[in-house]
């Protein structure tokens, strides 16, 4: 197995940041470490790179013990969230840094280095900007220089820490597609850290979802989205609504309305039902279902959203097809009934 992380633990003073994490990455895989801030995902990435030493556990790459190697001998490319470019060097000098730093025997000749740098800058679509300093580049361009710099050392693994964290939404989406293409072309085992579920679902072959320093679930985006192992996974991957319910014979009863349960149904009794906001029926008039009133109808976007206040407690955004939005106006009394739910016991 190319990259094998087993039982890694790490404490910062007394606070555990990684609790017994075991994870592997296949050759050429695109793996996302997803989780809320403080879940330990960046620390795990830094352990792989050698920028942090774990308190216990092992990290192996093709059988080699990575933990025994210092950072500079691991040949693991690392792209920092804030780029960490060398500000006094041009884009080309930044990219050439890793090649120039090699011991004299392994260092390519000057002309080879120049060729490699120019190829890499071409690869990241920055040809012509060789002599710009980082301060003269946009955020997206800096990120790509950082990537080219990491690729220059022909890394065995590429690690990206929140690669698009500091960029605006449009550039993020462009770079995301571009990074996917690049990964397909280079076939390099790539692990990236993100707190953005959409990014992870979009890009990754597999997602490792972390929570409080432990792995919550690992799987393909489809598995995580369609077969969430816990309420945390369900809530983290996409918008969700949590409603109190009573389980009765494999069916969730929410405000007198029986709702079919997807996945395992807990034993009879009170529980929490989780639904996606686009899987909720909204009806006007009396009957079963959660009584609520419409606070606002939001029409901007591909589908319409109803901002509904549930009587007594809470508010939810329900997604409905845009053509049905005309039926509703603010202050309408409505009933909400999820079409399907997942149910987890009250913890």
């Amino acid at each position, binding site marked *: 197995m190319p990259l094998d992380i087993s039982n890694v633990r790490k404490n910062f003073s007394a606070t555990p940041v990684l609790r017994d994490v075991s994870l592997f990455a296949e050759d050429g895989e695109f793996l996302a470490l997803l989780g809320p801030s403080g879940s330990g995902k960046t620390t795990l990435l830094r352990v792989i790179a050698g*920028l942090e030493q774990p308190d216990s556990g092992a990290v192996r790459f093709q059988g080699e013990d990575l933990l025994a190697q*210092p950072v500079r001998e691991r040949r693991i490319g*690392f792209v*920092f969230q804030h780029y960490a*470019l060398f*500000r*006094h060097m041009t884009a080309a000098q930044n990219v050439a*840094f890793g090649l120039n*730093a090699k011991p004299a025997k392994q260092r390519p000749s000057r002309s080879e280095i120049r060729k490699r740098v120019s190829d890499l800058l071409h690869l990241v679509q920055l040809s012509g900007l060789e002599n710009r300093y980082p301060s003269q580049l946009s955020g997206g361009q800096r990120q790509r220089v950082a990537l080219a710099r990491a690729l220059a*050392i022909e890394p065995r693994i590429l690690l990206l820490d929140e690669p698009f964290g500091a960029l605006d939404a449009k550039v993020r989406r462009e770079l995301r597609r571009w990074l996917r293409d690049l990964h397909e072309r280079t076939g390099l085992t790539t692990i990236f850290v993100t707190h953005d579920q959409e990014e992870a679902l979009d890009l990754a072959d597999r997602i490792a979802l972390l929570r409080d320093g432990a792995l919550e679930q690992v799987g393909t985006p489809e598995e995580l989205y369609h077969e969430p192992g816990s309420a945390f996974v369900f809530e983290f991957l996409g918008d969700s609504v949590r409603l109190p319910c009573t389980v009765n014979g494999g069916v969730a009863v929410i405000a007198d309305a029986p709702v079919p349960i997807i996945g395992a149904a807990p034993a009879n009794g009170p529980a929490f039902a989780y639904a996606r906001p686009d899987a909720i029926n909204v009806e006007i008039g009396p009957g079963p279902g959660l009584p609520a009133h419409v606070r606002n109808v939001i029409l901007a976007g591909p589908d319409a959203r109803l901002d509904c206040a549930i009587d007594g407690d809470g508010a939810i955004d329900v997604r409905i097809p845009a053509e049905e939005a005309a039926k509703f106006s603010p202050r309408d009394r409505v009933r909400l009934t999820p079409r399907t739910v997942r149910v987890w016991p009250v913890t």
Partner: protein
Amino acid sequence: MTAASRLRRLVEPSALPGLGPTLGFTLVYLSFFVLLPLSALALRPWELGFDHVRDVLTSERTLAALQLSFGAAFLAACINAVFGTIVAWVLVRYDFPGRRLLDAFIDLPFALPTAVAGIALAAIYAPNGLVGALFAPYDIRIAFTPLGVMIALIFVGFPFVVRSIQPVLEDFETEAEEAAATLGANRLQTIHRVILPAITPSILAGFSLAFARAVGEYGSVIFIAGNIPMVSEIAPLLIVIRLEEFDYAGAAAVGLIMLSISFVLLLLLNALQSHIARRGR
């Protein structure tokens, strides 16, 4: 056209108000405390004629004093630049017991009356002093030689370098160092190619300040220098000697030439510093 509108045409429009009053204040302040005294100095030497000025400035004693003053100040600033950088590095990068205390010691050369420092240095570095005695057997004399002058100048210039570099090092992002390590650079390469270039402008700034301070230093030097004409007599002392001889024009002439050399050197250093700093901005 009023003066104000003419001024406005000369400068870039800025969103920050108050160019007029602040520039006016700056000019007045600068005039009273810097330009006026210095222009008086520039006018004074010529009262006994051009030949007198030439004679004073070309006399061997003056030349020797100028050479010693600028040479020792330059060497002292170089040494301070090296060791000040190391001290700043240690203070910023490592946490050890007594770090704050050590940090406070750095400023002492600022606070101590220079004469006190001079007497203390002379006592230590004299052939029978604590340090001087170590060198005496090898026939190396420190106090009362140009070497002693340099020691005193290192002492007074030291805080400038440390204090110039410290804030820049504190702001330096450790991620750049980590990036260098992941790219395969060893510690030496990282320091040489990543850290040093980033702090070079502030090393230069500290060097300039230490150099400027050392050129004009008087109090601490005269006690340790021995003040032997042609050997260990600094230019500021020569000015005082001329004054005591009531040769005001001669004193002013030496002062003026020191001022001119210093000004040109500082201008060059500033230009170099901003040239280097601009690369990374």
